[in-house]
Each structure stands twice: as C-alpha cells, then as structure tokens.
C-alpha cells in the first residue's frame, strides 16, 4: 500500500499500545544493566517509565516533539555525571533488543536506530 510509506514507524508499530508494551521490556533491560542503571536511580519508577515511553515514542517518530535543545538540557546533568558514548551505545543496544524481542521487522528496527543515532550529539552535549 502506498500510504504505508508516509506512516511513521510509530504508527507502523501500532502506536500507543505498542509503546506501552515496549516500554516495560525496554526499561527492565536498562535498569538491569549495571553499566547504565546508576543514571536511572530516580526512585519514582512511574516517572522514569513515562520518560522511557516518551523516548520510545520520539525515536519511532510518534507524537512527542523534543527539540535538540530539550535533549541537551535534559541530559546535561547526566553528562556532568559522566554520560558518554559507551552508555549511549548500551541504551541503543537495549532498544534494538527490545524491538527484536517484540518481533519488529529488521528494516523498522534499523530505522528506529537511525533516528536514535541522530540524537547522539544532543544527548551527549556535543
């Protein structure tokens, strides 16, 4: 179908319900990874999960509009605490694994990772 080409990855994946299912799997992977979990020490897990969901929605092209400036400001305290490429790679890895675990087709996974990659400079404040 020709409309498929215009649909965002977010819509192709199934929109909000798909994000709700993905966020727990993704957040669990992030929390269980000792290399990065200390950046997620906020005791309010609901709030953290909501942030993870906003992130997933963004990298799949859904209705969350972060500007590069928001990303920079939001991550600046973490950069101060040593956030670097290795942590970014780890999160991207969990993102990939999550999508694969949920049966998302390889080309879509690749698209999502490309979008995530485009945020690297802002996240790491470069």
């Amino acid at each position: 179908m020709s409309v498929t080409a215009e649909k965002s990855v977010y819509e192709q994946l199934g929109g909000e319900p798909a994000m709700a299912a993905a966020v727990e799997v993704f957040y669990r992977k992030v929390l269980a990874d000792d290399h990065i979990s200390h950046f997620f020490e906020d005791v309010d897990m609901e709030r953290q999960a909501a942030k993870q969901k906003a992130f997933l929605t963004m990298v799949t092209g859904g209705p969350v509009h972060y500007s590069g400036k928001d990303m920079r400001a939001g991550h600046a305290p973490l950069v101060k605490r040593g956030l670097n490429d290795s942590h970014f790679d780890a999160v991207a890895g969990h993102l990939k694994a999550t999508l694969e675990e949920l049966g998302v087709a390889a080309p879509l996974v690749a698209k999502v990772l490309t979008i995530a990659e485009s945020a690297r400079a802002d996240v790491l404040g470069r």
Partner: protein
Amino acid sequence: MAKVKHESDWYPLESGESVLDALLRQGVSIPNACRAGACQSCLMRAVAGTVPEAAQVGLKDTLRAQGYFLACACRPPEGTLLEVTGAEALRIPARIQALSWLSTSVLRVRLVTDSPLAYHAGQYLSLVREDGLTRSYSLASLPHEDALELHVRLLPGGAMSGWLAHDARPGDRLQVQGPAGSCFYVPGRPEQPLLLAGTGTGLAPLYGIVRDALAAGHAGPIWLFHGARTPEGLYLTSELRALAEQHPQFRYRPGVLEGGTRDVAEGALDALIRAECPKPLGWRAWLCGDGPLVLSLRKKLFLAGLSLKDLHTDAFLPSVPQGQRTSDAGAR
C-alpha cells in the same frame, strides 16, 4: 514573584518555593508531615488562581475538581496569584475508642468517627490532633467493621506515636482526613497470584487487603511476607496463622533478620520472597512500610517481571522536621 493569599493576608513566595514552605516560613501553621507529596497531610484548596498539575498528583478526581491540592508539591510559576484555604471541610471528627499493644512497640488504635468514612481496606488517612499535629496512618480495618483500626509503631521521641502511646486515652477527640492512596484490592482476576510484603507496621494495610481479598472470594494464591529485625518486631502472628489455616490459598511467611525459629524464617525479606516466589510474572503486588525497602523491593519485583500497573506501594515516609529538606522535597 508568586503570591499566596491565606486568611486575608498575602504571602510572597521565593522563586521555586512551595506554598507549604512559604507559609510555614512566614509563621502560618499548616498541617504537614512528609513534605514529599505522599501523605496528603498538607491538603489545601485553591479558591482563586490555578495550581500546577504536579500539586494534584495522587488526588481523587472529586478533590481535584474542587481545587484541592498538596501545598508541599505546589510551586506556582512566577507571577501567580493564588488564594487558598485549609482542608478543614474534609475532616471528620473522631474519638479514640480503644488503645492496646499488639507487641512491645506497636500500638493498636481504634477510632470511631462521628460520620461514616468511606474507604477501601489498605488506604491511609491523616490523623489530626486537636493542636493540629498531623501524621498519616494506614487502615488495618475493613470498611464494614465498626471502628477504624490503625497500627502505630512507637518511635523514640515521636510526636504523634509518643502521644498516642503515653498520653492519649479512650474518649479523646481528634479528626481524620482522607482516605488516600491506591494500595487496595480490586476484585476481578480471582485466580491471579497476589504478593503482599511489608516490614513493621507496613503490615497494617496488608492485613486489611488480605482480609478484603479473602472476603471477595479471591481463589488464587495470596502470599503475605512480613519482615522485622527480630521476632519482637512481628505481631498478629497467631491471627495470621489462624487465617492461613482457614484459607488454604493464603500463605503467611514471617521473616526476621536475626533470631529465626522453626516458624519464622531468617534472612532479608527480598531473599525470602525470591526463594518462595521465584517467578512472579503476571502477579499483583502490594508493598508497604519503610520507604527505602519498599522502593528497592518494587524495583526488584519489576525486574523479576511484574508490570508497573500491578505494583502498588505505600512508602511510610517519615515526617520532615521544619527547616529541613525544603528544596528537594516533592522531587520524588
């Protein structure tokens, strides 16, 4: 600068300051305890002006609609003009019916309210003493029972617990405000395994929830883990053992850090839970009591596969002495 009007006077707020901190700083007495948006002791009502969304998190829709908000979580943006009143209208007069010891350090407080209080077993209320001292306590009773029951741990130097343990007498009057909290049993999925865990007086809401679930005919396994440092910290043990004998689906597992016996396991609470319930996937859980323990258990159970929507917690945050934790309170 934002300003708050309370009883015909305007009070200026410093940048980023909460309504509670500003009023306390300027000598207005407002009930409060946790200063972290958890206990709902600081409930107030906005009669003019708007409060930030964050100040209404956790409130019932009916309260929101009437403009109620949590003063400790209310940081109005620059330029806001807000007129507020207290939450006196929500308080129900009550009197102490009975006081008795459940263990050497846990007091059972039974209260009778002048008008009925509608609540779910497992919710908590704010207890307001005549002089305004306010603390939150979980309900251990069931709504159809004739008195409200609280389990209060006596803290050395504790203002409310000390007063209840040493000075209060049956017949004394106070007020209750509430109920609050979403830690309660909702019927449906009667076969789903339930996990309840808490330390100390975290047992109070769990005791209500267990009896509520059993009364609702919950048929799936119901595990109750109660932890304490030593066996003296456990209480209601014989009542809970009797309940387990009547209801084979109910399993009561007391545990202590030191001094375990044949009937009482020894070890950390999370290790006991892991040993008995290694794969709690698709379960529903309630965690109550000591703040850090509840939060760490929640994280472990989430990692073990429980969904966040099936994880209900009440962290018993301690009160904050005035002048402390003003800037980061509410940042939970």
